[in-house]
């Protein structure tokens, strides 16, 4: 007995069979109720569901979300720790931009061991020897390899090398004050670079630039005390080139010692794009280091470095002189601009001719008030102050150094999603550029991110899949820009992916591309990926483009990342074919957030930059900045965050990449909603932000005695303060931990601390002794800990422990509302109708309104409703608002909820406070004929008793009519 032809029968008699049970349970689960006429007594049982206390259900959900968020925070903290290590490496030597998911990071980590160790010896006092030879700036070695000490063999996993964190970036003037000598500066920012600032390490000042496109850096170190020297720093004799820097002698070398995965020796690699030049002038020792080989900085070779070095200390030219334009020049410029039919904004710098130009053109003229400070931040601020958020913008730069100025403006604009096109020089000495807003980004692809609107862009003709054994690789995206290439692929196992564990022989080789002529494109050493249970996905970037006339290439994956060598098929070769990006390329649209979509609390500003609309969710990108005094610049990370949709539903967000906090750049974060929110406005809510302060000048001394024992506890009474945050170190305990298969057992100390500041975590370092690991613990209330372990046993005391990082949680309320463009025209309810009905419990329905006209509701569409409530006196009852949409006398939609989807319970209202409750109904696909009206009322959630509206003759609700 099954199917639609079931017999109708008495519910309490007859035979029970399996079909009845099966059908009743299935129907109950699917539709919420089983039909008793079809499934008899089985349906009666299935329908006897116990009632659910919705408050409990919601509270438990919130508890789960909170615990999950806490767990995630812990994971993110671990990831952040790894990122910080990477960042240290980058800041010191590489300046490479990367994003680092957990598992893939392990690969990146292993690859970066060399540079981490380099950073270690460069920056720690014990690695420094100061003896210099007058004309021998590099220490020579006859060997091209040297064996690693056990302490230098670092495995991925628990024990990480602990490079000293970078000093904070400061101005040159501050650096001079700290270091105590006059610091020589370059007269201009070298082409292709962006100025970051200076860092001070004891008596050494490091002036730092990063490649504008990422992937490279230029660092100028100068010190009266000579160079840091170590075995890592030595150079084979044959790699050293004597050079003349002006009248001075110097030395140049390219290459460095590297450690290949699995190798126990460091080997000199002359091809690594690290170029160093050393010289001495007037008692100051100089080292200029260029790293990276991205196209924009390849020009900076030995000759150009020598030229730059010779110019160090020259006075910078005055860039901000007047335009010097004659009236005929302005006329010529005006004619040129008036040929542009589309309305546009014309931004001019300098602005001395702006009034004359404004009289002559049909477009809006705005002056750029950049002033004398030509730093990227100043340019960005000037542009941001005047540029519109959409539309066309022409930027006219007159009498500026074309290369430098244009590049800086471009770099600043690109951060704001503008694209700068080169234009003709029509009027005298001007440099002309056209900005096109909104066309810079073509769309968004999951796994890769924003896709630029490059007219030469080519893409994969079709996805390519290859299966070997249980494993399948699918190359699903390729983006072939005119200047670089990005390939995204996904690896999935039908059973279990053979992820390696510490100590395994791990695959660390990245995929590369082979072109038809046999040449290869090597990937950037870092990629962007995400591991999941059965595999991983990975976007690998190539700094080289695939030539425009090459329409195919072979992706070669030597081995699958993070797998155990020999356990998975190797040498995957996949033939890819490329076509011009079709006009209807399947990209998620990207919407810039409107101007002012920011939220500021506790001095921290969250700035929504853009939203990408995927089919099943939104991707939100935002930045964090903190306007604070005090000298300590923290790195900021989002804490608890979620999105609330128009119905008030809370939607979780998961990380979709983004740029971690970096010097002189506002960090940006990209998160994706776990599901597609209901139609209507979204609200991005952050409830906490973590501020992490890198430190270098706070320490305390601790003496464990001559014979410390595991488990021994020392009472401490140290009160420390950093950036206005204070904490006490109350005890230390000796611990012994497993430091991993290479290092073995390691000993150290766990310090217990407490603070009144929420969520405080402190990272401690002993910079005088080689450490195995440092691990701040998570706070348990006001108490927290930090553990550090040593590579070579507990050193003799007293020990100086430095505070290397302090992070605190900043609770607050940041909310940014964003309206999908398609709905922006009607994002606000129509004018609220004043209602003015007071219920018997003293709550007044002040006003109400809906977006759609109630006389013509659209079936299947959301119906957005806004209600405004107020109570003149405190309300203690658990009040629930019910809203019924009645059409043709039938109930077609209803909502019962505490205002604000539970966030504004009546007992929390302040007397006289206006409470706005906005939500959306999803209307059914078919609506009954007849007039519609909203019925709004209140009831007690505990007793289920309705509160009567006063003066409405016991109707039990207020009617809101068309």
């Amino acid at each position, binding site marked *: 007995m099954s199917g639609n032809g079931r017999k109708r029968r008495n519910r309490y008699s007859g035979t029970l069979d399996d079909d009845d049970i099966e059908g009743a349970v299935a129907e109950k689960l699917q539709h919420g109720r089983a039909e008793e006429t079809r499934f008899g007594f089985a349906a009666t049982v299935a329908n*006897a569901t116990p009632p659910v206390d919705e408050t409990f259900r919601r509270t438990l959900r919130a508890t*789960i979300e909170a615990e999950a968020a806490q767990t995630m925070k812990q994971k993110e903290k671990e990831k952040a720790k790894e990122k910080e290590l990477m960042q240290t490496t980058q800041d010191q030597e590489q300046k490479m931009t990367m994003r680092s998911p957990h598992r893939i990071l392990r690969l990146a980590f292993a690859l970066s061991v060399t540079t981490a160790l380099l950073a270690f010896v460069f920056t720690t006092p014990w690695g420094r020897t100061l003896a210099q030879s007058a004309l021998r700036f590099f220490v020579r070695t006859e060997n091209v390899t040297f064996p690693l000490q056990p302490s230098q063999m670092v495995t991925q996993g628990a024990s990480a090398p602990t490079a000293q964190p970078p000093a904070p970036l400061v101005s040159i003037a501050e650096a001079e004050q700290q270091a105590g000598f006059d610091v020589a500066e370059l007269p201009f920012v070298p082409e292709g670079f962006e100025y970051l600032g200076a860092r001070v390490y004891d008596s050494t000042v490091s002036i730092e630039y990063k490649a504008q496109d990422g992937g490279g850096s230029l660092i100028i170190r100068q010190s009266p005390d000579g160079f840091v020297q170590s075995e890592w720093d030595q150079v084979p004799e044959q790699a050293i080139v004597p050079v003349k820097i002006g009248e001075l002698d110097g030395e140049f070398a390219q290459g460095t010692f590297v450690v290949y995965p699995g190798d126990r020796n460091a080997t000199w690699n002359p091809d690594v794009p690290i170029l160093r030049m050393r010289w001495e002038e007037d008692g100051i020792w100089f080292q200029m280091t260029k790293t990276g080989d991205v196209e924009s900085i390849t020009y900076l070779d030995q000759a150009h470095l020598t030229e730059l070095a010779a110019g160090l200390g020259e006075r910078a030219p005055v860039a901000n002189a007047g335009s010097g334009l004659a009236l005929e020049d302005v006329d010529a410029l005006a004619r040129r601009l008036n040929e542009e039919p589309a309305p546009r904004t014309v931004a001019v710098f300098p602005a001395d001719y702006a009034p004359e130009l404004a009289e002559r053109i049909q477009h809006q003229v705005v002056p750029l008030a950049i002033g004398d400070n030509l730093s990227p931040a100043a340019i960005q601020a000037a542009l941001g102050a005047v540029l519109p958020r959409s539309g066309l913008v022409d930027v006219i730069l007159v009498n500026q150094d074309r290369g430098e100025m244009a590049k800086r403006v471009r770099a600043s604009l690109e951060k704001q999603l503008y694209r700068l096109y080169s234009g003709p020089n029509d009027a005298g000495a001007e440099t002309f550029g056209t900005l096109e807003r909104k066309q810079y980004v073509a769309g968004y692809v999951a796994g890769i991110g924003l896709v630029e609107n490059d007219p030469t862009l080519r893409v994969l003709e079709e996805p390519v899949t290859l299966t070997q054994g249980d494993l399948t690789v699918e190359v699903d995206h390729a983006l072939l820009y005119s200047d670089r290439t990005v390939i995204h692929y996904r690896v999935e196992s039908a059973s279990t992916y053979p992820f390696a564990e510490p100590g395994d022989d791990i695959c660390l080789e990245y995929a590369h591309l082979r072109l038809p002529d046999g040449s290869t494109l090597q990937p950037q050493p870092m990629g962007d990926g995400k591991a999941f249970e059965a595999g991983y996905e990975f976007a690998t970037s190539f700094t080289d483009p695939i030539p425009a006339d090459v329409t195919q290439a072979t992706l070669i994956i030597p081995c699958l990342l993070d797998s155990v060598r020999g356990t998975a098929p190797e040498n995957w070769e996949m033939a890819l074919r490329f076509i011009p990006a079709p006009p209807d390329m399947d990209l998620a649209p990207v919407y810039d957030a409107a101007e002012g979509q920011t939220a500021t609390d506790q001095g921290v500003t969250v700035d929504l930059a853009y939203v990408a609309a995927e089919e099943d969710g939104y991707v939100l990108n935002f930045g964090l900045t903190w306007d604070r005094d005090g000298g300590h610049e923290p790195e900021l990370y989002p804490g608890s965050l979620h999105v609330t949709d128009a119905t008030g539903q809370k939607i979780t967000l998961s990380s979709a990449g983004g740029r971690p906090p970096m010097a002189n750049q506002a960090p940006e974060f990209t998160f994706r909603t776990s599901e597609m929110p209901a139609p209507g406005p979204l609200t991005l809510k952050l409830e906490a932000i973590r501020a992490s302060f890198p430190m270098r000048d706070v320490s305390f001394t601790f003496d464990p005695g001559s014979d410390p024992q595991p488990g021994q506890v020392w009472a401490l009474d140290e009160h420390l303060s950093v950036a206005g945050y204070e904490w006490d170190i109350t005890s230390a305990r000796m611990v012994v931990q497993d430091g991993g298969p290479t290092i073995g057992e390691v000993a150290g100390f766990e310090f217990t601390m407490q603070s009144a500041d929420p969520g405080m975590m402190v990272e401690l370092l002993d910079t005088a002794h080689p450490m195995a690991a440092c691990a701040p613990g998570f706070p348990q209330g006001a108490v927290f800990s930090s553990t550090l372990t040593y590579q070579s046993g507990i050193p003799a005391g007293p020990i100086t422990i430095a505070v290397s990082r302090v992070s605190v949680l900043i609770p607050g309320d940041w909310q940014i509302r964003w309206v999908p463009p398609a709905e922006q025209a009607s994002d606000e309810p129509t004018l609220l109708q004043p209602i003015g009905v007071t219920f018997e419990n003293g709550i007044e329905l002040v006003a109400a309104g809906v977006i759609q006209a109630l006389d013509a509701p659209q079936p299947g569409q959301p119906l957005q409703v806004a209600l405004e409530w107020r109570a003149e006196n405190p309300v203690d009852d658990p009040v629930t608002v019910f809203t019924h949409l009645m059409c043709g006398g039938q109930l077609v939609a209803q909502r019962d909820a505490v205002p604000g989807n539970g966030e504004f319970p009546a007992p929390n209202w302040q007397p006289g406070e206006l409470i706005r409750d906005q939500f959306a109904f999803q209307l059914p696909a078919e609506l009954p004929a007849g007039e519609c009206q909203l019925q709004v009322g209140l009831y007690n959630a*505990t007793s289920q008793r309705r509160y009567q509206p006063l003066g409405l003759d016991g109707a039990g609700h207020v009617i809101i009519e068309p």
Partner: protein
Amino acid sequence: MKPAEERAYIQQARADPRAFVHLYDHYFPRIHAYVRYRVRSGQDAEDIVAEVFLKAMRRLRGFKWRHEHSFATWIFRIAHNLIIDYYRRSERIEVTLDPRERAPESATPLPSRAARPEEALIQQQTFQQMQTLIETLSPRRREVITLRFFGGLRNKEIAGILNLDERTVASHLSRGLQDLRDRYTALTDLTAQTSWQVLEEVHV
């Protein structure tokens, strides 16, 4: 939730526990109903339900997906074990011999979402009556009935949780339901003129 969706959420929740709320939303009604039928005290039942989900979220990495019903089996096994612990810990007696001696638990809340208070009342009465009847069954049949009807599990999955043969589960189910129906008929005859009549009118 389709099996593929469930599997995807499980994978996602392993990487990002915040995705676990999808599994919570899907399984809450079933877990709640099952636990509520097994534990008389509403407050204790809620405590157990909370523990089930928190434990499942914390242990998700240890769960191995084998087939489309394996997660349901796994989470209901957690619930089953917690209920056993509950009775063992509190030394409560799980069985009440005469249901008519039991007064409905006054602390049981009415559903606050109910649009009409009378519907909430009916739902409450229906549940209490069925709970009282189910409590008259033997512990094994009670377990099978609640897992089948309120947990929505199949006989094979129930067999896995209770360490029984699948045919034994089918037998308990059939006989348990028969017992339940007989007692239900007797009880409705006794209470024909009570509020149960309201329930009848609604169900017909």
